[in-house]
């Protein structure tokens, strides 16, 4: 069989929702993803309250000079191996903030990213697909 560490990570990815200065739209869609309608606990996905328990960070929002050190700190606090998944177009390419003096994204300049999920905001189905793609890459 494969590496049990990877198997465990695939079968029970606990996600921590890291809202880094987003407009809240993606956050609301993430909450929708965790409702009984989509029932992601079928795949072992559980929302946890502390980055110490997390296996996947769902990052939302355009990265800026204020939020960058905080995001990096949360990333460093997360036990490895961990996935980082960017949710929303802002994480991919700064989106409508691309000409802003304050936007310093995208995220993969600063830390390893496993998937980007475009959309403003992305639908929950798109997020499930993104997480599945990120996990199957392991």
């Amino acid at each position, binding site marked *: 069989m494969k590496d*049990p*560490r990877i198997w*465990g*990570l695939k*079968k029970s990815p606990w996600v921590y929702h890291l809202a880094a200065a987003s407009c809240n739209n993606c956050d609301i869609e993430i909450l929708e993803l965790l409702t009984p309608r989509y029932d992601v*606990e079928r795949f072992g996905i559980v929302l946890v*309250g502390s980055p*110490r328990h997390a*296996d996947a960070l769902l990052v939302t929002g355009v990265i800026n000079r204020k939020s960058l050190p905080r995001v990096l700190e949360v990333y460093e606090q997360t036990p*490895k191996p961990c996935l980082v998944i960017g949710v929303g177009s802002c994480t991919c390419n700064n989106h409508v903030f691309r000409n802003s003096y304050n936007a310093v994204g995208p995220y993969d300049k600063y830390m390893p990213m496993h998937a980007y999920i475009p959309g403003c905001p992305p639908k929950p189905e798109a997020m499930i697909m993104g997480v599945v793609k990120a996990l199957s890459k392991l």
Partner: protein
Amino acid sequence: MIAWERGWRLALAFVASSMVTVLIGLVLNWVDRLVSARVQWRKGPPFFQPFADILKLLLKQTVIPAGAARTTFVFAPLLGIVAMSLTAVVLLFANFNTGGSFVGDLIVLLYLFALPALAVIMGASASRNPIAGVGASREMTLYFAYELPFLLALLVPVIKVINTPGKLVADGIRLGQLVAFQQANGPFLYSISGVIAAVIVLLCIQAKLGFVPFDIAEAEQEIMSGVLVEYSGATLAAFRITRAMMFVLMPLFLITVLWGGFANWWAVLKFLAIVVLIVLIKNTNPRLRIDQALRFFWFILAPLGIIAVVLAYAGL
């Protein structure tokens, strides 16, 4: 020679009963999540989900926060596991080998059941996290809240045994004797004081397991899993294993002291009924505040417990 053999058998019993308890506990964890999913009209996780969770946590990196008291932080989770393993030996012996129980094991169990809460408080205080500190203080308050009605409720079976002519105090605090007494005279549950005691013990189990409405120390939405906030990897797995073992042992304890013990295999149904009842209480109640919980245990359940004790003295 004989002492050696006895020692080996005891060690074997210890390892076997704690292993069995962990396995059953993880399956029950799945039952808990499945029933919760059904209540919320969902499908729920597959049966191996708790095993996958534990495996993943055991193989993951364990972060020790800067400035934490390292030794206490790492060894506090083990305290809970050890306490629950000892509880498993004592409880299983009292049920399946009535002669194997010793005088006073009821009192030993009361102390052992207090240790997981102590382990959580120690670990949280050692982690140097203010949120964990808030959680630890809530856990401590909750402990003092539920312990009083719990003790009062457990006096009921003891009094019932002692009140019977020809029985000594030593028989009342011996689990094997409690089980044998119930198998001869019918479970304590089938009386007014027994019902009151069972309700109190059930609600105290809910609080000891840290389930809603008494998950105040771990409130995910307000203090981010509180006491466990700094725990990761294998240490978090240890706390989850402790919780899984408690989820087996607390309902088993309720059956042992009040509902006739594990007399035959029908007792499995009693056991599952209690587990599902606990899960349903968990799923249909909001979280209480710590002061509300304290008031509930001290000013509602404790007087009820006193009433139960008086009724038990009167023979009801």
